[in-house]
């Protein structure tokens, strides 16, 4: 095992080297690729997982021929912005980059991601949940190795629902009823918040059977399907819009301090959350710990079993990787079958594993959460992940989510009818796609 301080030392050494060399030599000689010394292949990785340092250490300790240099260049959009500039510039990208599922087609069309198929990545097909593998690949081309996901379920304040005798909703109609009853017993409370989060709304639409996007570069690079106005999609926005309009649903943006505080103060009674949520909330909701429970998502049709996913990420190998074979190994094995990595991933970083064996492990499914008063919540999340079907994204998902966010923001502030949100987004997205040279179908 390496000492815990090695990373810090490596950083200092790197900086020191940079300063010395850059100070002495001509400016143009600075930066860029590190020297080609013999010894293990060094693979650079960009990722923002919590507690990732231990995962990197575990990888480096178990590999003598490949060593990982990890950098956290920022969360989500911050890192993507850097990746996009690096792809545009033709240099500066890492060998391996963490990328969320909905971004994979975007980076594929930017010609940034390498196909890991030739390097043996197809062998991993059966290791991962089917829906995740299909999003990470395009036919035989493997653009990403899944890591974690976010199967959705309903987190709710069991104590409050019990106390007021309100049944936990099993359908969305019941959910709307519960919203009204909650308002009636506590005027300051809401059933939940409409969190202005693209991935969250997407997960809800996914769960409603809405499949608004379709894209396969392998089939046709310039053909894309966009159908946001299908009834399955509209019913989600209609329901939530109605709750917002009636004042039964709050409007705090998720993950802000306000939203977190509201979850912890009894202001919100539910949260349609994801498999990573238990870890997320356990540390920050101190007052209400032990009072929450998890139930399956309310269904659009009573007795149905439709599910959705919110979030999740993968490792990709960029086309700028100096050694794609080694990079592929890193992408496959940083988590992959690594017990040590998943030990950190499950217990410290609270990732929801997309490796089927890990998710099925009794150590995971049988884990009782104090935050949920001893409930074994993974018994709910794991079947959801197994049930998830195929869902595709556009190669310009940032634009779609941003436009959807802007339109729902207009609706929340009263500047737009909720019923026109998806129509307007559909219109804007189609116009954008056509401008980008796509043939758009519904």
């Amino acid at each position, binding site marked *: 095992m390496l000492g815990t301080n090695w990373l810090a030392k490596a950083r200092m050494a790197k900086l020191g080297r940079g300063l010395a060399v850059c100070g002495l030599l001509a400016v*143009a000689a600075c*930066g860029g690729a590190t020297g080609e010394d013999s010894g293990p292949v060094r693979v650079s990785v960009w990722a923002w997982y919590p507690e990732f340092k231990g995962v990197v250490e575990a990888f480096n300790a178990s590999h003598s021929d490949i060593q990982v240099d990890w950098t956290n260049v*920022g969360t989500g959009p911050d890192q993507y*912005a850097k990746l996009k500039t*690096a792809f545009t510039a033709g240099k500066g990208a890492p060998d391996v980059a963490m990328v969320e599922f909905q971004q994979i087609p975007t980076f594929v069309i930017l010609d940034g991601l390498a196909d890991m198929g030739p390097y043996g990545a197809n062998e991993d097909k059966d290791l991962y949940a089917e829906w995740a593998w299909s999003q990470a690949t395009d036919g035989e081309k493997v653009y990403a190795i899944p890591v974690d996901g976010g199967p959705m379920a309903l987190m709710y304040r069991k104590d409050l629902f019990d106390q007021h005798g309100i049944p936990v909703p099993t359908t969305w109609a019941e959910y709307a009823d519960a919203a009204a009853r909650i308002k009636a017993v506590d005027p300051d409370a809401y059933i939940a918040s409409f969190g202005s989060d693209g991935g969250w709304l997407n997960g809800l639409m996914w769960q409603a059977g809405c499949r608004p996007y379709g894209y396969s570069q392998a089939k046709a690079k310039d053909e894309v399907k966009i159908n946001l106005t299908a009834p399955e999609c509209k019913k989600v926005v209609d329901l939530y819009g109605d709750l917002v309009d009636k004042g039964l649903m709050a409007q705090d943006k998720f*993950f802000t301090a306000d939203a977190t505080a509201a979850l912890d103060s009894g202001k919100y009674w539910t949260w349609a959350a994801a498999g990573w949520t238990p870890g*997320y909330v356990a540390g920050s909701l101190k007052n209400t710990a032990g009072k929450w429970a998890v139930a399956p998502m309310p269904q659009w049709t009573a007795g149905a079993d439709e599910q959705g996913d919110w979030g999740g990420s993968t490792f990709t190998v960029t086309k700028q990787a100096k050694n794609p074979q080694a990079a592929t190994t890193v992408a496959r094995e940083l988590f992959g079958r690594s017990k040590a990595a998943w030990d950190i991933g499950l217990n410290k*970083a609270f990732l929801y594993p997309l490796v089927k064996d890990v998710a099925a492990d009794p150590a995971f499914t049988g884990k009782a959460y104090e935050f949920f008063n001893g409930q074994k919540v993974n018994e709910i999340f794991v079947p959801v992940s197994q049930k998830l079907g195929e869902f595709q994204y556009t190669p310009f998902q940032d634009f779609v989510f941003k436009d959807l966010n802007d339109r729902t923001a207009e609706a929340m502030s009263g500047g737009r009818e909720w019923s026109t949100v998806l129509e307007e987004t559909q219109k804007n997205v189609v116009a954008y796609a056509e401008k980008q040279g796509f043939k758009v179908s519904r």
Partner: protein
Amino acid sequence: MTIGGAGNRTTVKTRLPHVLMAAGILYFLVPLLWVVIAATKSQPDLLDSPALWFAEFNLVENIEQLFREDDGVYGQWLLNTALYSGLSALGATALAAAAGYGLARFSFVGKRLFETALLGMIMVPATALVLPTYLILSELEIVDTMWAVILPSLLSPFGAYLVRVYVAESVPVELIDAARIDRAGELRIFWQIAVPMMRPAIVTVFLFTLVATWNNYFLPLVMLSDADLYPLTVGLTTWFNTAQQEAGTRMLFNLVVTGSLLAIVPLVVAFVLLQRFWRSGAAAGALK
């Protein structure tokens, strides 16, 4: 430039201006006070306790945690910020001082054109430059190094403009001509005669460029991807994003607040202490 001391001004003591100034002090100070108070709180207290009053005193722990988090990367950010802004400000000031002096006291081909362009240069939005600069520096393989932040920061048209205006006003031509008659070299004249007389303008340009680089966010955000090279502004926003993203696994809001406080203090102190120097320089710029 000498400025009439406050003593020879009419001293007016009326209640209204003081009431208004008190309101102003409150307005400008309360947010800063909030940072000071909030920096003394633990993350749970930050969420729970009254915003403008102290809870359990946690400042020492916050600072300790601040310098420990991510292997003490905050200390690195502080150092980087000081290094980038120090070098940029020194370089930009030197360039601006020489150029301003050259423009004010010499004539050469293209001078008028250059002077006219100077005001235009001030108006170019920085964001318009960052992206093409990134692509160019990336060709030269110096993105993601400190030079990618420092070199573009050497550009200070406003500094050159200010020095030029100041020299025209405060460095007499006679003095320079007298030195020339004594066969002093141009560089020596600049260094020994002009620079001492330009000091207020130089201090002003130095401080303004220092603040500009210290506070710069966009340029380092685009140029740097190695967290060990970040300045405070980029580092703190990264932490803030992480705090929002991973509230459960890491306690970072208190660190963002404490880190902000420590990022502000050096500049506030520098400005208050150096006020007397730079204010007269600013006056020269303002008068024009």
